[in-house]
């Protein structure tokens, strides 16, 4: 076991650093109606950036179309200054399609 395994727990199958959760799919539903959106902002969920991510990769994964990356960029202008530069650990808002 290396130093990295000790640092990161080494609990995953790979045993090398952080586990890769980049392909995780998530969703939700409720017996309660959705709250009315405020100020015209559509409901969103969040996504935590992992190493190797880009806005187009996230858009491809979340919306099935890499060309929809500006949708994510626009929803996160407060924390993304350069759309070509996002950082692991950043929590991005992913607007609902609709």
């Amino acid at each position, binding site marked *: 076991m290396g130093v990295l395994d000790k640092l*990161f727990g080494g609990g995953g199958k790979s045993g090398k650093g*952080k*586990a890769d959760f980049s392909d995780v799919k*998530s969703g939700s539903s*409720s017996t309660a109606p*959705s709250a009315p959106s405020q100020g015209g902002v559509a409901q969103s*969920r969040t996504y935590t950036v992992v190493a190797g991510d880009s806005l187009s990769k996230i858009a491809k994964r979340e919306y099935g179309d890499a060309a929809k990356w500006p949708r994510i960029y626009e929803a996160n202008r407060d924390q993304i200054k350069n759309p070509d530069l996002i950082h692991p650990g950043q929590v991005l808002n992913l607007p609902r399609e609709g």
Partner: protein
Amino acid sequence: MSIHTYGMARVCGLAFILLASGCGKRDAASTGDTGSGAATSAAVRVADVKVGRALGADKRVTDETDEFRPSDVIYAVVETQGSGANTSLQARWTYQDGQVVDESTRSIAASGEDVTEFHISKPSGWPQGKYKVEILLNGATAGSEDFEIK
């Protein structure tokens, strides 16, 4: 002497007024009647959190467990009670040392007893180990469940 008595009377009178006004406010708050009939999100509370492999049509867990297989879809079901026109529920899924797996937020118009489910899946399979789902109600932790992938 008379000055001292007058001073004491003023102090007692002021204390009485303060007590009376305080009681009045408490009485008004205890009725819980806003007059508009609209309750605030503060009235909503998380009654229960369960994790499992499958849901019924009512969105409640039908296969409750805390041990999953790498190929499972994992459901976290949150039961809430109370009313709030804009209630935010968030599920934060973490792995072992706190690595964030996913975060999802859902805003609901809660009314009475509601059931909200969050689910995650991983086509390439979940790494084995211990996980946790934390439920936040309007940004504050309201419950959590630990589970394991074996």
